[in-house]
């Protein structure tokens, strides 16, 4: 049983969820939602899911809050008062209670919280725990399963980020010809913030690269590292202005890099097909990488694949933020 701090956190999480839905100001609601995500990631750490917690801290609490703020910044944070719509409330309440009842129905059947003998923990996952290190020489089992056993999922997951950024471009990107809208944003000329971010950004990027490269041995990997790298660019865009960050990574190059990241992943998996093995069978790379056996070839391939993921995710987060904050014009922002 894991009761203890997790129980307390779960209750807190519930309270925060209610507050973030109930509060009558969108910006506050978003900030509370960020806190909710962060507490959620503490719970997951408590349950031993450090990689998931890391991702949630970077994605849920960090970047998605920034996305929300980027949208609210250009629009409105006010919530209009609505007359009470009783029938809609009753309808939705019935629907939710129905769903909840159905879920509760299955509750009696589920194994208790933290039971190591439950079938979910013994069937397939046991095999991963026992043999992943022998077969791939990667001590972080999550990375091993993510980038090798279930690499096909991960490839499409990278595609999802790519689709998101492409879709947002498709919907939001404006032609240069359209007239500029007057925004209240003025160029950020605060010296302290500039100096501080100028000081921090290299370290953040270094840390991002470390997370990508050290994913084999510690929590982290392509997604987390990519999000951190993207966040560093977002920080530059916030502290300076969009023109400045566009000099570092232009929009066109960002899109190109986002594709290239997916191509690195998929292409790395495609090479074994040409060598007569199945897709994503990294052991075939042993023939191409000098001095590696089949096991080490898997280990190295995972690094290559994670780099691809990191590039795509970095460009994805950066691209989504830039589109949202400048409404697809890429001239002015937060």
């Amino acid at each position, binding site marked *: 049983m894991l009761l203890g701090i997790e129980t307390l956190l779960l209750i807190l999480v519930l309270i925060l969820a209610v507050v973030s839905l109930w509060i009558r100001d969108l910006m506050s609601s978003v900030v509370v939602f960020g806190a909710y995500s962060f507490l959620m990631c503490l719970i997951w750490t408590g349950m031993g899911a450090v990689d998931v917690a890391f991702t949630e801290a970077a994605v849920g609490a960090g970047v998605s809050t920034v996305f929300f703020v980027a949208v609210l910044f250009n629009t409105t944070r006010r919530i209009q008062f609505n007359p009470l719509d009783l029938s809609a409330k009753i309808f939705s309440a019935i629907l939710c209670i129905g769903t909840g009842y159905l879920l509760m129905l299955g509750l009696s059947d589920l194994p208790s919280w933290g039971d190591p003998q439950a079938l979910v923990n013994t069937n397939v996952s046991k095999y991963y725990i026992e043999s992943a290190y022998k077969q791939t020489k990667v001590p972080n089992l999550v990375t091993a399963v993510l980038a090798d056993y279930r690499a096909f999922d991960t490839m499409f997951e990278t595609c999802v980020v790519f689709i998101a950024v492409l879709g947002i471009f498709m919907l939001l990107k404006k032609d240069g010809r359209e007239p500029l809208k007057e925004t209240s944003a003025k160029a950020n000329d*605060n010296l*302290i*913030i500039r100096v*501080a*971010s100028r000081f*921090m950004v290299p370290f953040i990027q270094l840390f991002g690269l470390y997370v990508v490269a050290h994913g084999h041995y510690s929590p982290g990997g392509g997604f987390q590292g990519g999000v951190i790298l993207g966040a560093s660019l977002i920080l530059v865009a916030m502290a300076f202005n969009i023109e400045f960050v566009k000099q570092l990574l232009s929009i066109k190059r960002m899109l190109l890099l986002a594709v290239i990241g997916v191509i690195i992943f998929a292409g790395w998996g495609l090479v074994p097909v040409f060598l007569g093995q199945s897709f994503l069978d990294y052991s075939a790379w042993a023939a191409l990488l000098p001095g590696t056996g089949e096991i080490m070839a898997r280990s190295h391939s995972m690094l290559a694949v994670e780099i691809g993921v990191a590039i795509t995710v970095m460009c994805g987060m950066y691209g989504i933020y830039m589109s949202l904050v400048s409404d697809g014009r890429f001239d002015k922002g937060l």
Partner: protein
Amino acid sequence: MAINVLAVILFAIISQTIHHPTVQLILNILIMASLGLGLFFFFATSVGVLRFPDFFTRLHAAGKGDTLSTILILLACSLFSLKSAKTLDQTTILAAIKILLIINFIFIGSPTATHALIEAGYNSEIDPWENNATRN
């Protein structure tokens, strides 16, 4: 920054003698003291945020107290990870140093964020609180 230098020197000193009972005792006391202080400052911060009258004073409490208490608690974590290790090897020291690096980030990031918030508040012309009771 100075705290890092101090801590690294501390690591160097204790790395030879970590299992000595006196060293263990000192480490325990250090950990407990910094944890306790950190928690105290956190508590004070929360009280300040809740009780202070306006935006600027509240942020003052939040910015200062939060930074200091986080630093203290992280320091305690760093020392604890040293102390609880079975043997002192690369991994343990690396973990301890990583936590110290987080302290650096907090040390720079948190005051800057507070500054940005205060400036935003100032620009959007929030009236600072004045103690009318004493003036009259």
